[in-house]
C-alpha cells in the first residue's frame, strides 16, 4: 500500500470516531449508532483503566489493552484517531490555519526536552489515583476534557439550533423535531471548561500537539509504550533529499529532517510526513530493519522510563498537599443548613459516595444524557478530590423513576449499569419532611405536591386537622427527589432528600394481583 494514503485513512477514521462520540455527548438518540459509540467509549484509555478496576477486572474494561496493543504495533494511533480531544485539536489547527501567516503554519522539530514535565504529570496523576483522588485526571484527561467542552459548549449550541429548527417547523404544524430543555450549567463549570478549551486550543494552534506531549497523562502513558513500538516511521537514507517537508507538517514536532531523528515517544502516528514527502524518503517498518545511521541518531534507549520512575517520586511530594486540602473540604457538616442534603446526592448505580468520587472523571456524559437534566456538575461539593464531579440537583429537576440513562453511558464504572427494575430499588437518599416550613401547616391549605410526584408513595398524605399533611416512610423512599423538586416553599424546601453516603436498597413496592373488580351495579347518582 502506498504510505501516502495513510493520512487520508487516519483523517477518515478519526473524524468518524469523533463524530460518533460527539453524537453521544450531544445526547442524540440513535439506536444503530449508540452501541458503536459505546464501544468507542470502552477504548478511551484512562476511562477504560478506571473501569477495569472499578468493576473488579471486568472484560468491558479491557479496552485499554487493545489501545496498548495498537500503540505497541503502530505507535500512538490512539492520540491521532481514537482520542476525541486529539481530533478536536486537529480540527482547531485546520480551522486556524487560513488565519495564520504562512511562515507560522509550519512546525519545527523541538528536541526532546519535554519529557520531565509530562512524566511528572503522569506520575503525579497515578500517585493521586492510588491515594484515592482523581483530581488530576478530572483536570487533565483528554477524554474527560472533551466531555466537559462538549457538554458546556457543543451541546448547548446543538440544543439552540435544534430548538430553532423545532420552532420553525412548528409554524407549519410539523412536530417531528422535539424541542429540548436548555441545560443551564453553573457559571464556574462553564469557566473551567472554557479555560481548558482555550488553553488546549491555543497550545494546538501555536505548537501542534504540544498538549499531548507535555501535559496529557494519557499521551505520556502511551509514549512509554511507543518507545518500543514494532512498526516505526523511519528515514530511508537513499531516498531522502533532506528537503524538510516532513518536518514542516509534523504537528507533534518530533521529527528532525536535518539530523533524521524521530522521537517516537512523541510521534502521534498522524502520517502527515508520508504524504508530505515527495520522494519516498520515509517508510514504515519493523524496528529491526532500521538502517544503522538512523539507529545511531535515535535518542538513548527509553529515557522516558527512567524519568518516569524518577518523577513518580517527585509527584508523590504533592500528595499530602492535595490530600489535606480534600480532607478539609470533605463532607460538609449536617444540620447547619436549614434544608438541603449535607453531601451531594450521587446518581443511582454509583454504589457509594466513595465509589463514585474514586471513579468519576467528570466527563459529563451522564450530564448530557440525563433526559430530566437532574444531573449537574458540582464544583467543590465533593471536596477537592471530586472536583467538578456531577451530582443530582433536586432544585432543578428530579430523577425519573423508570429511567436508567446515566447508568448506561458511564465509561468508567463510577455509575454501574442498572436495569429499570434494579434501579427502582436503589435508595440514593431519603426524603426528610420539615413540617415547620410546610404550606399545609403554615397556610392551612392543602398542597401535596410532594406526595403527588412520589413514585413509591414513600411520601404520602395523612389526615391532619381537616387537611392532609405529608408523611415519609423512609424505607420505601428511593431518594429520587421528586418531592423536593415539586415542593413549592421558598427559599428552603419543606421536604428534601438527604443523600445516602452508601446507597441502600429500598423496600420494593409489593407485587400486585392486578385491579380489584368493582364494576358498578348502578350509578351512585
Amino acid at each position, binding site marked *: 500500500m502506498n504510505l501516502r494514503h495513510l493520512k487520508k485513512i487516519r483523517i477518515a477514521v478519526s473524524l468518524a470516531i469523533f463524530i460518533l462520540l460527539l453524537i453521544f455527548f450531544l445526547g442524540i438518540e440513535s439506536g444503530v449508532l449508540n452501541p458503536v459509540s459505546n464501544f468507542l467509549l470502552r477504548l478511551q484509555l484512562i476511562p477504560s483503566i478506571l473501569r477495569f478496576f472499578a468493576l473488579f477486572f471486568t472484560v468491558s474494561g479491557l479496552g485499554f489493552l487493545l489501545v496498548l496493543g495498537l500503540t505497541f504495533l503502530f505507535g500512538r494511533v490512539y492520540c491521532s484517531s481514537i482520542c476525541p480531544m486529539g481530533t478536536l485539536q486537529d480540527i482547531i489547527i485546520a480551522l486556524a490555519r487560513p488565519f495564520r501567516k504562512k511562515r507560522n503554519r509550519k512546525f519545527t522539530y523541538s528536541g526532546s526536552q519535554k519529557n520531565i514535565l509530562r512524566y511528572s504529570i503522569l506520575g503525579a496523576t497515578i500517585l493521586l489515583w492510588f491515594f484515592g483522588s482523581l483530581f488530576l485526571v478530572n483536570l487533565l484527561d483528554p477524554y474527560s476534557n472533551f466531555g466537559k467542552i462538549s457538554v458546556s459548549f457543543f451541546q448547548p449550541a446543538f440544543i439552540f439550533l435544534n*430548538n430553532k429548527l*423545532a*420552532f420553525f417547523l*412548528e409554524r407549519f*404544524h410539523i*412536530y417531528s423535531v*422535539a*424541542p429540548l*430543555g436548555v441545560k443551564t450549567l453553573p457559571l464556574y463549570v462553564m469557566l473551567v471548561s472554557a479555560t481548558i478549551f482555550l488553553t488546549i486550543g491555543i497550545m494546538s494552534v501555536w505548537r501542534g500537539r504540544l498538549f499531548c506531549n507535555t501535559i496529557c497523562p494519557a499521551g505520556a502513558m502511551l509514549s512509554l509504550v511507543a518507545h518500543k513500538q514494532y512498526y516505526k516511521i523511519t528515514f530511508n537514507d537513499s531516498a531522502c533529499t533532506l528537503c524538510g517537508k516532513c518536518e514542516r507538517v509534523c504537528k507533534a514536532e518530533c521529527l528532525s529532517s536535518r539530523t533524521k531523528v524521530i522521537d517516537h515517544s512523541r510521534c502521534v502516528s498522524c502520517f502527515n510526513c508520508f504524504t508530505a514527502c515527495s520522494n519516498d524518503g520515509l517508510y514504515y517498518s519493523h524496528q529491526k530493519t532500521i538502517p544503522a545511521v538512523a539507529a545511531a541518531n535515535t535518542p538513548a534507549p527509553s529515557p522516558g522510563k527512567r524519568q518516569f520512575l524518577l518523577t513518580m517520586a517527585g509527584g508523590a511530594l504533592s500528595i499530602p498537599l492535595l490530600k489535606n486540602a480534600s480532607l478539609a473540604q470533605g463532607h460538609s457538616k449536617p444540620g447547619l443548613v436549614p434544608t438541603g442534603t449535607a453531601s451531594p446526592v450521587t446518581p443511582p448505580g454509583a454504589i457509594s459516595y466513595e465509589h463514585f468520587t474514586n471513579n468519576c472523571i467528570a466527563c459529563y456524559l451522564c450530564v448530557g444524557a440525563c*433526559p*430530566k437534566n437532574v444531573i449537574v456538575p458540582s464544583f467543590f461539593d465533593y471536596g477537592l478530590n471530586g472536583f467538578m464531579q456531577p451530582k443530582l440537583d433536586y432544585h432543578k429537576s428530579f430523577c*425519573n*423513576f*423508570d*429511567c436508567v440513562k446515566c447508568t448506561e453511558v458511564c465509561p468508567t464504572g463510577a455509575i454501574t449499569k442498572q436495569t429499570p427494575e434494579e434501579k427502582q430499588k436503589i435508595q440514593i437518599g431519603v426524603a426528610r419532611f420539615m413540617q415547620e416550613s410546610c*404550606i399545609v401547616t403554615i*397556610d392551612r*391549605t*392543602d*398542597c*401535596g*405536591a410532594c*406526595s*403527588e*410526584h*412520589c*413514585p*413509591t*408513595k414513600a411520601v*404520602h*398524605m395523612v389526615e391532619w386537622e381537616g387537611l*392532609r399533611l405529608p408523611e415519609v416512610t423512609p424505607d420505601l423512599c428511593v431518594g429520587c427527589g*421528586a418531592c423536593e423538586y*415539586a415542593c*413549592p*416553599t421558598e427559599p428552603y424546601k419543606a421536604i428534601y432528600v438527604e443523600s445516602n453516603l452508601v446507597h441502600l436498597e429500598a423496600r420494593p*413496592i*409489593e*407485587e*400486585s*394481583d*392486578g*385491579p*380489584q*373488580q*368493582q*364494576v*358498578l351495579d348502578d*350509578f*351512585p*347518582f
Partner: protein
Amino acid sequence: MDRRSFIRKGFIYSALAGLYSSTIGRIPLLAGQRSATQSTGNYDLVAVRGGEPVAMYRRAMQEMGGIQRFVRRGQRVVIKPNIGWDVPPERAANTNPDLIGAIVKDCLDAGASRVFVFDNTCDNWQRCYQNSGIEEAVRAAGGQIVPGNLERYYHEVEIPGARRLKTAKVHEQILEADVLINVPVLKHHGSTTVTVAMKNLMGVVWDRRYWHRNDLHQCIADFCLYRKPDLNIVDAYLVLTQNGPRGTSTADLALRKSLLVSTDIVAIDAASTLIFGTQPENIGHIKIASEMNIGQMNLDRLNIKRVAI
C-alpha cells in the same frame, strides 16, 4: 250541523287529538326529529357503564347528540388528556390511549381542521408521551401531539373574577383553540382526594407550584373562569383508588368500567367523585367552584342520562 252536534264533535276530536299528541304522537314526533342513531343531546350529563372505554365513549356521544354538536368544520380542536406520568396504560395514571385516539378521529371526521393533544407532564415529557401510549394513538388517529415542555409555549393571561389565581401562563394551544375537549382520568389524589376534570386543567399552565403555594383548591376553581372546556369526558374505566395520582402498582386500581360526558365541569367532577366513592361536598375545589357558579354540583338539578351497556 247544529250547534250542539258541533260542540260534541269538537269535544270528541279535540279529546282524540289531545290523546294522540300526549301518547302515540309524542314518539313519532320526536323520533322524526332524531336521526336513526342520535338523540338530541339535551342532557347535562351522560353516564355510561359496563363497556370498554371506546364503546362507552361512542354510546355517550350518541346520547350527547354526536361530536358534531361541539366540533364544526374547519375548527381547531385541542384535546387535553392526562399524560402526567411515565407509566404504561395498564396502570391507569394517564387517560386511556384508545379513548384519546377515538376522540381525535371523531373530531377529524366531524371536519376539524386540526386536532392537537398535549400535557405539561410531571415526569419526563417524551417518556410520558411515549409510554402512556397516547402519542402513538394520536398519531394513528391523524391528530398531532405537541410539546408542552418549555416555558416559551406558555403565555400570561388574566383570569377575571379569580380570587387567588389572577394570572397564569397558559399553553398557546389553549389560547388558539376553537374547541377544548378535556379528557381526564378519574384518580385518587393525595391532597385533593380526587383528580378529575377541573384538576386536569393544571396541565395546561406552566407554574403549578404557584397553585400549590396559594390555596390549591381555590386556584383549581379559579382557573375555570379563564376557559371552561367545551366538553369534558371522564375516563373512569380503571380507577386509581389509592396512592394517586401516580399510583405504585395495578393493585391500586379498581375496575369501574364507567365513562362520563358533560359540558358542565363541576357536574362531571361531582358525579365522578361519587363513582370514586366519596361525596362532592368533601372536595374543596368542587365546593368552591359551585359557590362561584362555575357549574352545578347538585346532581339532582341536572338532566342526567344513565346508560348501562
